[in-house]
């Protein structure tokens, strides 16, 4: 897209911020008119209550000056009404008899003061003043600014995705392609671009540029061949120099533009699922009735475990199905199945029904994932496969970034069942978008993509100690701890301690945030540096130690720190780990196709997703939160130690740069 849509996005962002600020300002203004009289009334109820007590004391013959414990009464009142900054009792002489100040609410400049006289037989002996800080009104609206900025961020991200989609229509692609060409030519980058077929002025212009580049390229090739033939080192060097400067004979490594179009529907679809993250556990707990012999915690984990298990088990089997059905059709079928699941979940009456509808969503989710992956693998070759798969990863991460906080807000404001309907709607939108944003089926003769790993193959992969240690010591615990904490424990424990869904969503989003910021940097760094095992090990150990955070800090900061640390840790290990799998596969199992090794890797990973919540639920139900945290952390730490031991024994000093595999 480059220079074309970025200004649009900036303008849109500024515009949204301004509009939301304006709305908040108006809300604040009218809130003042609404809340001030109300606060005044409440302050006078408190004032009257304190005054009445003092009047009674005087009536009983207790002199005002001898009243004991007035401070305590004021403090209690202030604790019950924390919106006021202070309450004081002052005698007619001006002497202050007692006062209490809120430790948290400051009066600030020019506060309001509600004064109630203490009258005994018509004579004003003293007065009670309740002080209302001005900042109070602002604070009531400011409290939601966190939510509003989440809405802002999410709408910008959604806008970004929408722009991406629009720029993937034919004209859009032409426009974008043209922009790209102009920028790179301006920089002196004369690599060849992928073909643009769009008709119209922009396509025409782009093709003209391509033609010009093509001509130069052809001439370059011709010159190179002739120089070679003449065997003149000086000339050969000169041709190469020219090539280096302008990269004339190279082809740009980028996914075919048609593939990028798959991102919009995927984003919408994964967003639909991510919306449910923050409130899923607490929603299940409203349905859960005690099952035979199972603790509440285990019952709550059931739908989450079932979902993960279905995705893990189905994935290896679905590839050949989507290939036979056609990726595009399979993806659309997957979306429809998931929509049934989302919509049904909104109306379930008990846990069993919920389990059924979540299974629908799980099947749909697995189908969409596998079809998208298949479509990308079909549409790419070895050179641009990693870039292609990064489309899928990006869609998942951006969805994971804005899904939970927005889902939390929606669940708080609309309700949990209604949010399932929003999810269903989003998934339906994804379905509509696939109509014009999905590439037509690409049929290939050869069996593309990883096919189902057989049991024998799985055993073969796992019989290599280095691979087994990596898969069970690192990959499995990594997904286990992720699913245990982010999908299950954090939302459940935060909901149990009374946090609203929006707050839970904000905490969960930290994982994706850390990943999005760090992963690209770490990938580049680890590709360059090598030392992949070190990254993997470091990531595992930092993940494991994240569970300490909630034991140190009070909620929600402990949970937030834990999720953030987990995100940072996994950002360190995720790319090196993936690359390491390919590397070890090539070294130890040269005769097994790389795709198969990755298939086994994904299978092991995803079973971690299913085991995580199950294990946590059992420990949580039997021994409580702290034990659950410790056990999950311990599994991760033990895995890392296992890997360390195996790597140490095998003298596995892998450090050669390898091709990065994503997805």
């Amino acid at each position, binding site marked *: 897209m480059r220079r074309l849509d970025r200004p649009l996005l900036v303008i849109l962002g500024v515009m949204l911020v301004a509009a939301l600020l304006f709305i908040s300002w108006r809300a604040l203004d009218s809130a003042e008119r609404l809340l001030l009289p109300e606060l005044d009334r409440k302050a006078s109820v408190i004032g009257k*209550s304190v005054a009445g007590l003092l009047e009674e*004391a005087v009536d009983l013959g*207790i002199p005002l000056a001898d009243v*004991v*414990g007035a401070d305590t*009464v004021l403090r*209690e009142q202030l604790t019950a009404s924390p919106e006021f900054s202070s309450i004081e009792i002052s005698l007619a002489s001006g002497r202050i008899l007692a006062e209490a100040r809120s430790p948290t609410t400051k009066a600030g400049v020019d506060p309001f003061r509600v004064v109630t006289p203490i009258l005994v037989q018509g004579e004003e002996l003293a007065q009670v003043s309740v002080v209302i800080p001005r900042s109070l009104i602002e604070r009531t609206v400011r409290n939601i600014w966190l939510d509003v900025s989440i809405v802002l961020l999410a709408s910008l991200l959604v806008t970004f995705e929408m722009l991406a989609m629009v720029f993937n229509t034919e004209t859009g692609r032409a426009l974008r392609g043209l922009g790209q060409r102009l920028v790179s030519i301006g920089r002196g980058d004369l690599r060849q671009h992928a073909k643009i077929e769009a008709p119209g002025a922009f396509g025409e212009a782009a093709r003209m540029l391509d033609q010009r580049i093509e001509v130069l390229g052809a001439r370059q090739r011709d010159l190179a061949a002739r120089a070679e033939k003449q065997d003149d080192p000086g000339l050969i060097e000169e041709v190469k120099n020219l090539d280096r400067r302008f990269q004339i004979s190279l082809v740009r490594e980028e996914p075919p533009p048609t593939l990028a179009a798959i991102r919009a529907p995927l984003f919408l679809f994964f967003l639909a699922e991510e919306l449910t993250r923050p409130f899923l556990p607490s929603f299940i707990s409203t349905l859960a009735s005690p099952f035979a012999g199972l603790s509440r915690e285990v019952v709550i984990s059931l739908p989450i475990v079932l979902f993960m298990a279905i995705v893990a088990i189905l994935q290896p089997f679905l590839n050949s199905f989507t290939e036979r059905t056609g990726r595009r059709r399979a993806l659309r079928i997957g979306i429809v199945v998931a929509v049934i699941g989302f919509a049904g979940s909104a109306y379930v009456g008990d846990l069993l029904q919920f389990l059924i509808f979540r299974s629908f969503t799980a099947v749909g989710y697995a189908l969409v994932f596998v079809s998208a992956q298949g479509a990308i693998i079909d549409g790419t070759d070895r050179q641009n496969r990693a870039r292609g798969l990064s489309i899928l990863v990006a869609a998942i991460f951006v969805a994971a970034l804005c899904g939970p906080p927005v889902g939390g807000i929606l669940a708080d404001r609309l309700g949990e069942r209604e949010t399932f309907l929003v999810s269903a709607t989003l998934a339906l939108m994804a379905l509509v978008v696939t109509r014009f944003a999905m590439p037509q089926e690409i049929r290939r003769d050869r069996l593309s993509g990883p096919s189902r790993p057989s049991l024998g193959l799985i055993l073969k992969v796992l019989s290599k100690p280095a691979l087994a240690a990596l898969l069970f010591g690192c990959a499995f615990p990594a997904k286990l701890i992720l699913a245990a904490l982010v999908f299950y424990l954090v939302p459940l424990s935060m909901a149990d301690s009374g946090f609203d869904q929006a707050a839970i969503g904000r905490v969960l989003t930290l994982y994706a945030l850390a990943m999005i910021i760090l992963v690209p940097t770490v990938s580049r760094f680890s590709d360059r540096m090598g030392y992949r095992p070190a990254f993997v090990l470091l990531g595992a150990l930092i993940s494991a130690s994240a569970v300490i955070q909630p034991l140190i800090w009070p909620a929600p900061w402990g949970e937030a720190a834990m999720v953030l640390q987990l995100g940072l840790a996994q950002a360190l290990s995720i790319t090196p780990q993936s690359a390491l799998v390919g590397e070890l596969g090539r070294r130890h199992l040269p005769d097994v196709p790389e795709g198969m090794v990755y298939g086994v890797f994904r299978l092991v990973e995803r079973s971690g997703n299913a085991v995580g919540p199950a294990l946590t639920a059992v420990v949580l139900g039997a021994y409580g939160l702290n034990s659950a945290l410790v056990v999950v952390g311990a599994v991760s730490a033990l895995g890392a130690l296992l890997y360390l031991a195996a790597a140490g024994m095998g003298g596995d000093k892998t450090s050669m740069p390898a091709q990065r595999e994503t997805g």
Partner: protein
Amino acid sequence: MMTSRSIGRRDFLAGMAGASLLVPAGSALGQAGGNKGPFKIYQMTYRGETDVERGFKDYLEQRGINAEIIHRNTERDPSKVKEFLKEIEEIKPDLVYTWGTPVTLATVGQYDDDEAFDLSEKIPVVFTIVAAPVRAKVVPDFASSGRNLTGAYHVVPPDAQLRAIQSYRPIEALGVLYTPTEANSMAIVDRLDQLAKESDFPLIKRSFALDDEGKPTTEGYEALLKEIKDEGANWLIYPPDTFLGSQLDLIRPEALRLGLPTFGTTEQLVRNGECLLGLICRYYSVGQLTARKVEQILVEGIAPADIPVETLKRFSLIINVPVAKQLDLYPPLSMLNYAEVIGS
């Protein structure tokens, strides 16, 4: 009627009782039907009608339970129970009501005393104002009597008592005056001993002298009070002690003269002893609670052995302001929120 306030009396006093406000299956069940009488209830009291009987009668009336109450007074002589038992044989009431430990024991005997007469073998018995039903062996434990018997008691748990005292003025040393021959009183003193150790303040115990027949006397009570004062007590607690209760006219002025703030554990002690402070079970409410048990037995058909022996869930805090003025020891302001104040 007091003015409305925002700090609930309820919140505080329920906390004192250390019990949550569990709502026993009250109202709805009572209204739901069942046999509402007429019933004959034979009522034996120790010293005539009190607020307990008033609360008892009011409750039955409010619930629409048609009961004929035959009242008999033992006039502080439990041996009269024998005569009444004969009358019970003739009248054949639906239920017998006993007031106080002596009357109750004369009617049903101790649960482990096989020799003793036990009326509950024939007719359900509900007792009230038995200070320590377990210690007096009326029942083996509070959950169930194991007999055709249940009841209500009227003692505020001593830890709640101490909390009430502490929130008026912290205890430096606590004095207690009691009769060594009274089981009710001894039970409380033992418990106070234990609590004093836990809260780390001295408990200064003084007991009335006994005469040759082993009966308590007031001999030397001034010296006892003075010793309590001299050993540093800043509070004097009156346990539920019958002899002490009968000698308040002597003790009251002496305590006041020494400037000792007093704390009463029963309504009678607080009133007659002009205590500065008291946390008590209101007799009227105990009567209502007793009537609730009767309702459960007669109307709802629950076996008495299945009905726990209980005290109130909420107690009344009483402050005597004129005494506070004399001692120059005014109550903390927040207490006026939930206390009943005895004014001038």
